[in-house]
């Protein structure tokens, strides 16, 4: 199990070691080949010194166990695990792209790129969480991209699978992770709150936007405790042109108490994709850190805050389901819009705390051509205004209703894509009578990832 054992040209369980791609502190990454492999694969082989570091061994076991359970585009495809008592290794798909760490220079990223890459990472994280896995060591070095919109998460050595025994927790209840990105509840040894990953992603977004880490890179885990009372420098202080919405998103992720962060990665992704719709509070406009007086009060309260964090982490996050209502704004569909409003009221009544996403799909063939910019812009503004007017009677508080305009050649496909991308919990769609309508209904009900309420009214318009 020593480093010297592995050399190029060796064959392990049929995998031929071709080239060492990376030599890290804990493991080496080798490009390997085997005749039946149809994709480029790598072998991750740890340097295990059992006498020296038991947690390292457990971490590799955890990674082997969890990699074998994961699937989808947001993780490397798993190929094989090596017997931990003989030659431990994991063979997996090789992800070509540079890591986010390599992409991040000293220069901050453009805000638009922070938003789009951030949304891609949040989406990948949401997929991981859907598979019942908490990463718990999310950092730029563990994030790669298949393409700018598809993030891949790696390194599950500190991760937790909700339905498998937690080998790591068993070995040591001491906090583990990378201190620069670690959430306060991880300092308490809590490994069950998915929002810990959202805190880490907030720290990553901060770094992408400003070029520096929000809490520096403290040496000791004890320094993580400071995050409970000491707030980071507002990112716009370092980067004056930063949109307030982005600061709002970042600082919401970095809230010490999990209940004040986003409840899910999907919610975060939705905000990153739609910064115009983010409700900017004092958090987004803040220019200064909390003053000495506030800091002192927070410091004195920090024990109570830690108790609050522990309590929040031990119960499920407040559920904030998303209800999507597809609204057709054509003037002759007034009765339909009224019926949709009534349907929205009853669905909202059954899903307390839900967020209403009002969606208008513009058929691309209907968008006027010629002078598209000016005309298109106007149409967009008007459509959003019409959506606002439609939802106005619901009297929903800000933040509980969002408005979206998308272009698609096919209305049903637009609705379904939006529902999938944002992990919508319920779709409400109005369908006028007629043969073309039944096709639309079928496309939406069969394609949507959730329940669908189809609203019908009597003859609204002659078909």
């Amino acid at each position, binding site marked *: 199990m020593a480093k010297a054992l592995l050399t190029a040209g060796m064959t392990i369980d049929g995998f031929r070691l071709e080239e060492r791609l990376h030599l890290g502190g804990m493991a080496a990454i080798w490009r390997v080949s085997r005749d039946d492999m149809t994709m480029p694969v790598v072998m991750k082989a740890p340097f295990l010194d059992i006498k020296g570091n038991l947690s390292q061994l457990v971490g590799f076991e955890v990674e082997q166990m969890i990699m074998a359970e994961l699937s989808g585009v947001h993780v490397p495809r798993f190929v094989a695990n090596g017997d931990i008592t003989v030659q431990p290794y994991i063979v997996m798909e090789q992800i070509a792209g540079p890591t986010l760490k390599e992409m991040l220079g000293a220069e901050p990223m453009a805000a638009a790129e922070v938003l789009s890459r951030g949304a891609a990472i949040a989406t990948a994280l949401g997929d991981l969480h859907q598979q019942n896995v908490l990463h718990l060591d999310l950092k730029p070095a563990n994030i790669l991209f298949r393409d700018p919109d598809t993030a891949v998460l790696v390194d599950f050595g500190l991760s937790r699978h909700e339905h498998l025994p*937690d080998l790591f927790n068993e070995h040591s209840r001491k906090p583990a992770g990378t201190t620069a990105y670690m959430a306060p509840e991880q300092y308490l040894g809590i490994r069950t709150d998915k929002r810990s990953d959202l805190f880490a992603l907030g720290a990553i977004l901060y770094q992408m936007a400003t070029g520096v880490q929000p809490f520096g890179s403290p040496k000791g885990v004890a320094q993580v405790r400071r995050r409970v009372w000491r707030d980071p420098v507002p990112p716009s202080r370092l980067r004056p042109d930063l949109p307030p919405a982005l600061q709002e998103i970042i600082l919401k992720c970095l809230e010490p108490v999990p209940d004040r962060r986003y409840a899910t990665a999907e919610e975060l992704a939705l905000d990153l994709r739609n910064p115009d719709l983010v409700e900017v509070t004092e958090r987004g406009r803040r220019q200064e850190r909390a003053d000495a007086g506030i800091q002192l009060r927070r410091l004195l309260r920090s024990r109570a805050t830690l108790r609050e964090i522990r309590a929040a982490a031990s119960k499920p996050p407040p559920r904030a389901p998303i209800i999507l209502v597809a609204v057709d704004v054509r003037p002759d569909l007034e009765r339909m819009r009224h019926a949709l409003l009534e349907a929205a009221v009853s669905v909202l009544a059954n899903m307390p705390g839900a967020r209403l996403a009002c969606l208008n799909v513009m058929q691309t063939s209907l968008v006027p051509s010629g002078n598209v910019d000016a005309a298109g812009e106007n149409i967009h503004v008007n459509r959003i205004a019409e959506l606002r007017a439609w939802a106005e009677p619901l009297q929903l508080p800000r933040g509980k209703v969002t408005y979206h305009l998308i272009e698609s050649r096919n209305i049903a496909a637009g609705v379904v894509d939006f529902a999938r991308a944002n992990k919508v919990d319920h779709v409400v769609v109005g369908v006028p009578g007629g043969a073309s309508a039944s096709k639309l209904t079928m496309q939406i009900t069969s394609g949507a990832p959730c329940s669908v309420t189809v609203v019908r009214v009597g003859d609204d318009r002659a078909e």
Partner: protein
Amino acid sequence: MLIALFADIHANREAFEACLADARANGAERYVFLGDLVGYGPDPAWVVDRVRAMVDEGALAVLGNHDAAVDQPGIRLNPIARAAIAWTRGQLDDGQRRFLAELPPDLNEDDRLYVHANAEAPEDWVYTLGPKEAHASFRATAQRVTFCGHTHRPALFNESASSLPPLHTPAAGRPIPLLAHRRWLAVLGAVGQPRDYNPAACYGLYDVASSRLSFERVPYDADVTARKVIALGLPVALAIRLSNGS
């Protein structure tokens, strides 16, 4: 090979039939009975006959404390269990009673140990409820995986070099890899009388090749069994237990 593991059937025909059908549908090729075929429930003769027929065809079965108590009135049971066993005794013929009396306290198969309560002292009937009991059980066997029952609550322990074996409460129907270089103790929940507030019958499926274990939950019509319990004059508390899994 896929092994179906049944603990604590407790003469509950409806739950047992539902689990057998589910195991067959999942492709089970081997059947192991982890004790307490009888006691509490209304169909002891039917269950014993069925298990005996399966054992004749190669299934394995070990002794449970209720099974032993049929012929050994000295075995300690709580008053309700004692009343149920007294009734059970009258329901079984000599052949059925002999089958129960001759069940072995434990069985080894490849790297697995099958026992009703605990490897430490199979006939002391200690409940494997937490890390301490699990630790004692690990010390008493060299086998890699121990399967037991007796507590009526599904649980999984893995041996640790640095601490008592931590308890994992398994989620239903989620296969768990029993990592090959570690040792494991799986406490199957009860087929015939779950006590983890989930009245669905519980049994295990273990795939030998991949070393994956899942704790399956099978809903069945517990009211049918509960009505039989009441009609036969068995303690009413036993009927209530079936309906709410307490």
